[in-house]
């Protein structure tokens, strides 16, 4: 009886410790497979002003993310992160309707990026924009 108990305790300790042993190995695997973190904000000239005339939009990539540049009919320039806030499809500018549209689930945003209709829950995040010598400079965080 006593012998059996002793054996049980030893078995328990061995299995428990085997679990502990696996922690450093599993955490190494986890760290290895975790995707690299994005580094701080990226600022770059992504387009020239000529390429985005009034009442038009253009999608560019910055740091592997899609960015929508638009120029309103009044000539005001804006930049948005182009992933729809619903499920992440890339949105586009519609000249005829003068709005931003996501074809996946028909979400519509106005030219301020505000969600007007469709399932999109939030406005599109607006990005800081600057014009330097006819270049459009956008910062993505």
């Amino acid at each position, binding site marked *: 009886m006593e012998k059996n108990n002793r054996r049980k305790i030893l078995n328990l300790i061995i299995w428990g410790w085997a679990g502990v042993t696996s922690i450093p190995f599993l955490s*190494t695997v986890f*760290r290895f497979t975790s995707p690299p973190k994005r580094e701080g904000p990226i600022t770059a000239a992504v387009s020239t002003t000529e390429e985005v005339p009034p009442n038009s939009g253009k999608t560019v990539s910055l740091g592997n993310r899609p960015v929508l540049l638009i120029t309103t009919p009044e000539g005001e320039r804006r930049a948005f992160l182009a992933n729809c806030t619903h499920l992440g499809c890339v949105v586009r500018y519609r000249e005829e309707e003068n709005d931003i549209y996501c074809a996946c689930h028909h979400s519509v945003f106005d030219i301020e990026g505000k969600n007007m209709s469709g399932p999109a829950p939030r406005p599109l995040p607006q990005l800081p924009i600057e014009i330097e010598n006819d270049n459009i400079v956008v910062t993505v965080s």
Partner: protein
Amino acid sequence: MIQKYFKNWCGERLPLDTIRNHFKNKFVPRHRHTIWYYLGGLTVFFFVIQLLTGVLLMIYYKPTMEGAHQSVVYIINEVPFGWLIRSIHSWAANLMIATLLLHLMRVFYLQAYRPPRELMWMSGFILLFLILGFGFTGYLLPWDDIAFYATQIGTEVPKSIPLVGPTLVALLRGGEDIGEATITRMYTLHVFVLPIATLLFVGIHLFLSQYYGASKPITTRPKGKDIPFYPNFVLRDLRTWCIALILLIGVAILMPWGLGEEADILRPAPEGVKPEWYFIPMYQTLNILPARILIFDGETILNSVLMIGGFVVFLLPFLDRKAKQRERNKFILTAGTLVILYCIVITVSAYI
């Protein structure tokens, strides 16, 4: 309570009792050579490590001419613990081949291949070639200059095989020369074809080892009671694996596996181009062999000798008639020892 219910549930659906009885009635002979029984298990252990670390490396590796070397550099420099995982993969590969060769020697010297274990010997022989195939295909993947030239030479060797040689080389390289097509071919073999084939043969080999049990040597006298396979011998195996793991991590961390300059097809061959140590006997023999012997090419002769030799080794259980009658076969043991000695001497001579 839950545990018991689960056990019953499984017991009603699976032949658990049969399996349990099998393990209960399996014993490992205890004698002065018992220690050699761990080598097969060790090889399997290293193979499992190769599978795990290989999958991890596959996440970041890019099998293209531009990407291959760069992605390995990225793994080493940027990925957390990438250098460690890659170092373990390289070290375990070499240790696996070492334990595999030692395991082969122990089976040979204890003549464990004698009936009824012919199929184990044959499946083991196929496994040897599959594992060497892993070594050969994996060597090129980092795309550094030494690996590039070693593969250049290695894929040139089969060229002298009559009739099929050139076709074989073209198949291996995916063209006349080594390039991007070679990388993708080697990659496909290394991460898909060879693993599946190896798993199949490891399965057969392990099933047979359970079916026949460990072979008792012909002349050695037993030393005490046989060891029950479960749990005693399994725990001994686990202990051996712990020691192997400590050694493996030790060398992988203290002597991390390096990486050469990126391969450049136009650069002349650098000094010290050598295949991995387990291909040295073949490589060095090729070096010392005269270009022509009588009317034949040196290479053709070496290839023929290797093929005939491989065939003889493959069929060894059938050729060794004495072992069938549980007698030591002096001739075969001497011949095998001479081959092993030759390999050791020539390997050492290649490094000094």
